[in-house]
């Protein structure tokens, strides 16, 4: 399927230019704008990088100032606590459920699988009202536990199905050998299945982490001032500081830094997770 004619080369060049422009421009604009002074963003000089990078913009965004009240440092902490906790809990419980769904074939487990399958695409809009009532009634909404718990139940179906799909691909002989040696299912799971599925766990963890880190609707509706996430505070900053595009871009850079680092350094797992989620689920 390979080709090397002249028209092909022109076409390749054209695609390269168009896509580079469309996908590098927004990133370029975000980075150069984040380093500009407020004067520069309000009068001319929109596209060239600045001569004097304003590193203090990042400090201002992180710790707040008179004109930028939505300080991000604590929100960054909130997002980190919430996303990492949900990821760990989801991977653990999702693994157990995925193992159940992939190994047990009874009528009951089939019904459960169908329920999980439907819950995969449950819009958050249809669970948000009861969740906010529960958060208020139990007082969980005042701490990180409320958001962690809500994200956990909503991401469990995805984690179970993804891990279950990976488990289906494991050769059954391994488990049968352990069973002959007298190991119980629980031992088999923790000592045989889990260790050889670590790459799968990594993929699932990255997918769940990114999803929770980037989630906005639930965070906006459930978070109290003390548990606000990065995404919510960014939305707030955009609403209140419409003209300070430089600070907004600095905030955006801080908000994407963690998932983007995962993407750049663990891209393999990232892509495998996306594909598993899409193609096998």
């Amino acid at each position: 399927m390979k080709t090397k004619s002249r028209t092909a080369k022109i076409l390749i060049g054209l695609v390269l230019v168009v896509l580079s422009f469309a996908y590098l421009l927004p990133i370029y604009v975000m980075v150069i704008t984040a380093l500009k002074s407020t004067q520069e963003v309000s009068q001319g000089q929109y596209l060239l990088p600045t001569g004097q990078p304003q590193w203090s913009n990042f400090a201002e965004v992180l710790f707040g100032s008179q004109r930028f009240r939505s300080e991000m440092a604590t929100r960054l902490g909130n997002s980190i606590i919430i996303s990492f906790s949900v990821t760990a809990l989801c991977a653990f419980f999702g693994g157990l459920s995925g193992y159940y769904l992939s190994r047990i074939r009874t009528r009951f487990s089939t019904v459960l699988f169908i329920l999980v399958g439907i819950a995969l695409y449950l819009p958050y809009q249809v669970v948000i009202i009861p969740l906010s009532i529960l958060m208020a009634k139990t007082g969980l909404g005042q701490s990180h536990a409320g958001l962690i718990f809500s994200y956990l139940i909503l991401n469990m179906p995805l984690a179970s199905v993804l891990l279950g799909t990976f488990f289906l691909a494991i050769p059954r002989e391994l488990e049968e050998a352990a069973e002959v040696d007298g190991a119980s299912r629980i031992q088999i799971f923790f000592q045989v299945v889990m260790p050889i599925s670590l790459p799968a766990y990594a993929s699932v963890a990255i997918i769940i982490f990114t999803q929770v880190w980037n989630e906005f609707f639930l965070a906006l509706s459930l978070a109290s001032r003390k548990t606000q996430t990065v995404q919510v505070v960014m939305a707030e900053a955009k609403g209140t500081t419409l003209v300070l595009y430089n600070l907004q871009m600095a905030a955006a850079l801080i908000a994407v830094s963690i998932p983007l680092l995962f993407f750049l350094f663990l891209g393999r797992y990232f892509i495998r997770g996306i594909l598993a989620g899409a193609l096998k689920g």
Partner: protein
Amino acid sequence: MAKRRRRHRGELTWTENLVFLAPLLFFLILLYGTLLWTIYVSFTDWSTMAPNYQLAGLKWYRFLVQQPKFKVDIINNLKWLILGVFPTVTVAIFLAYFLELTPFPKVEAYIRTLILYPVAMSFIVTGTIWSWMYEPSRGVINTLLRLVGIDANLPFTTDPDTATYWLILIFIWQYLGFSVIIVQSSFRTTELQELVEAAIVDGASRLRILFAIILPNIRGGLLILVSLLLISTLKVFDIVFIVTYGGPGIATDVLALNMWITTFQQHLVSAGAGLGVIIFISSFILVIPYTIYAFRKWFE
């Protein structure tokens, strides 16, 4: 031990059920519990901060349908469904095919990374960046156009008639890379590769191979991609919230944003629950073909 080893496949002991099944059951009961709770709330008469569980039938559904906003939402959501999905899938098919044909592996690797990075970004971040790109007087695109001598002064999201299309463009930008890798991976089955090799030997043109051989053989992958994109556009909330907040006026409002404002700003909780139920039923219908396909694969 010997007894346990001989037990019937699929039977679990009490402890094993507790470890493997209990968490799953617990989360499922909670999820479906909240779902049923929302459906129930939509039939009650709850329209203030304080809960009111008195049944009111279809009162709040009637209220919703009569609002001018609802019609705008339906039209906008349809625009999102059609224009957010089909252009994305079409471009993704051609781009994925193009990447497969490229004789330079480095070009392929570069483009894949380039268009995939938005997958790691939130719509809130993307929306913030694109707000600046779209800014009518000082924004990036209009400044660039002015540089090359076009004084178009495009109004982008400030024009009620076209604002939704500019929002959809952000969505396409964000989801293109995701779509390309899904299409690309469904190209890469051995049966399909063999069919393509055979067609090349027969002297078929590249476009003919794409339409006559590849497309009919990746129906499964396309079904999945279309379904995922349909769901995402149906639930679209973040982009609209951050870029226009439904404005100008209510021109870019969508069901999910209406649901949030109705519930959390106006405290018409029963009406908000009704919108939630409408979104749920629509998404349920949209994924039926995909769900059937996925179940068949799982139980193969």
